[in-house]
């Protein structure tokens, strides 16, 4: 919940881009005969509404009502005094402030004559909201539109690529502070990492550490003091203007610089590829893929779609323990990581 900079730059995110996304979404809605689409937002699940409007909530919850035509309506459980801030940071024309989201949604949908209504991630939406909606509007035909949204969301546009690249650059600069230097790496680097990313204007940064890769090859959430051993890893999940990437690197304080550089060169060159056999001296472990395909900023996927931004999480092992890395890539036109390109240049 450590929100950093939340501001809207029309240069970085032109209104026309958001309107184009909306038009594309409506094309998908028409294909399924929907009268309207509901897209939920709250602190942990801001990504879908952010993608369509640039709105990122720092409190409470909201629902974007996307009708087949005309401006979408953002209903939020925030008081009216927050509306000016929403207008400054997002591309929305009508904001409804309501303590009873379900009842307000029902009134809106009913008055618009919208009966067949899709909802992204219907089962995960707050029961209190959807039950109130159904109680107030018994004629509504709610349908789950998760797959529709995922299909719409897959391919990154130029704006998403640019913002994700900026997030990755912020992460790269911050992560460089975790490299071993002349002195042993201490926990206070985490403070420097946090400060670096936020000074660069990131919206959010999550820091995970694996303090001792010889003992445990898992990242853990920072929950208090930490102490780095000889081999460790740091993972940064960084958001910039609503777009999230993960970047992780492992380090070994005993290695000479040229050994570290050689390994980093291999990892960086393989960043856009699922082929990790080229990491000298290591056996290859599992690969995990994540992308933004719904309301969560990043979630697991099995296979990338063509032109999708994907965070690739990789693991290797040698006799010294695990070696971890994560990199954001742009999946190739065949929707395969082997044809993808690294987001960081």
């Amino acid at each position, binding site marked *: *919940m450590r929100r950093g900079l939340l501001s809207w730059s029309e240069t970085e995110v032109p209104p026309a881009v958001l309107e184009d996304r909306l038009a594309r979404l409506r094309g998908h809605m028409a294909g399924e005969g929907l009268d309207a689409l509901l897209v939920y937002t709250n602190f942990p699940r801001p990504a879908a509404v952010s993608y369509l409007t640039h709105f990122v909530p720092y409190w409470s919850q909201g629902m974007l009502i996307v009708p087949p035509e005309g401006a979408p309506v953002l209903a939020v459980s925030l008081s*009216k005094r*927050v509306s000016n801030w929403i207008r400054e940071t997002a591309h929305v024309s009508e904001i409804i402030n309501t303590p009873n989201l379900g009842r307000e949604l029902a009134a809106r949908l009913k008055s618009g004559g919208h009966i067949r209504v899709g909802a992204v991630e219907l089962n995960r939406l*707050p029961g209190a909201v959807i039950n109130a909606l159904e109680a107030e509007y018994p004629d509504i035909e709610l349908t789950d539109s998760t797959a529709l949204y995922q299909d719409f969301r897959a391919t990154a546009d130029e704006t998403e690529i640019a913002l994700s690249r900026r997030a990755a650059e912020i992460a790269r600069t911050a992560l460089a502070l975790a490299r071993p230097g002349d002195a042993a790496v201490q926990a206070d680097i985490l403070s420097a990492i*946090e400060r670096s990313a936020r000074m660069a204007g990131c919206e959010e940064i999550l820091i995970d550490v694996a303090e001792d890769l010889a003992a445990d090859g898992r990242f853990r959430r920072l929950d208090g003091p930490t102490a780095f051993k000889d081999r460790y890893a740091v993972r940064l999940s960084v958001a910039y203007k609503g777009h999230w990437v993960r970047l992780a690197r492992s380090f070994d304080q005993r290695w000479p610089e040229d050994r570290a550089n050689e390994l980093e060169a291999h990892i960086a060159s393989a960043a856009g590829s699922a082929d990790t056999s080229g990491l000298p001296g290591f056996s290859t472990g599992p690969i995990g893929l994540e992308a933004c395909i719904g309301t969560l900023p990043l979630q697991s996927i099995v296979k990338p779609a063509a032109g999708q931004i994907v965070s690739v*999480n990789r693991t290797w092992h040698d006799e010294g323990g695990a070696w971890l890395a994560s990199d954001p890539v742009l999946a190739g036109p065949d929707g395969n990581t082997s044809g993808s390109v690294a987001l960081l240049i």
Partner: protein
Amino acid sequence: MNVIHRERQERLFAAMADEDVDGVMSWGNAWQCDYLRYVSDYSVLEGDAIAIILIDGDLHLIVEGETEAGRARAKCPGATVEAADDLVGAARRYLAKLGNRQIVTAPRTLLPYGLAPENLDRAAADGTDLLDRLLMTKSPAEIDAMRRATEMADAGYRVFRDAAEPGVAEFELVAEIEGYFREAGSPENFMIIGSGGQEVRGMHPAGERRLREGDLVTTELSPCVDGYFSQICRTLVIGEPSRVQQDAFQVYIDAMKAGFSVLKAGVTASEVAKAENDVFRDYGLEEYTTSEYTRVRGHGLGLFLDTKPHILEDVDTVLEEGAFCIVHPNTYHPVAGYMVLGDAALVTKDGYRTFSSTPAELLSTVG
């Protein structure tokens, strides 16, 4: 298992036994995970999560994706952890395995549609009240964590005050505070900020505005120790405070004092709110106690930063001994702009106890 969580589990299992409950299914997410943390000692960092704990101590965690599952496994080695794309489906399958056991769910307000009682094919009573009673009254170890969080908030405010100067952007100021809290070991912090003059109506996440001489800079800092949040609200003037600002702020000083003057075990949230609001009424500022200008006049603190009860005149929840809350008469002032002042306090039998050392006054970058 750490002391604080052992205490929680003892209280939880005793309450479950009292009510013939075999298991609790609690829901949490990266914003609000107090119910989840209480039963599992796990705070989710990304997405939503479900913890199902049985009275014999068996704990099952369902989280979204392998990244979060890795964190959960590292934090809770004794639990079974399931990474699921379909959290609701996974929870339903797990519940089905539990047969006829008496399972309650909490908090009802956060439960997803797919797990709402109407949509479950088994009975699951509402366990929100059971958990609320435990969450609201703090144990000695919990109080100690909140004391330390309050001290961290004080230290954070000193960093804030030192870093706030003309030319600094709001987000740069936040970067300094978050860097400090990270260094101090706080895994979470909720912080909003406002800067400017009479035109400012509230606080929000940091923007790009740069501080100017004469600005009122409002903030609330909410660091966290061992999962427990405390909070401090203060208003800082960049430079010398004007007479208008000082006069306006007297209302907030009086209102916070009035709120604290009635605070003790057995009073309702309503009584505290009324005491604060009456001061505004006396100053002819009643309008600014309404939802048009302010949200709440304080709230509970604990494993969530905005927990029950909300300090409002229509909330009759009784504050019991051991409750922890913040009294903050934050609102817009028509002459000076948005101002805040608030301290966290432990409710005691005869009154309250604060742990904050930051002066409860209009602060300034000079002097």
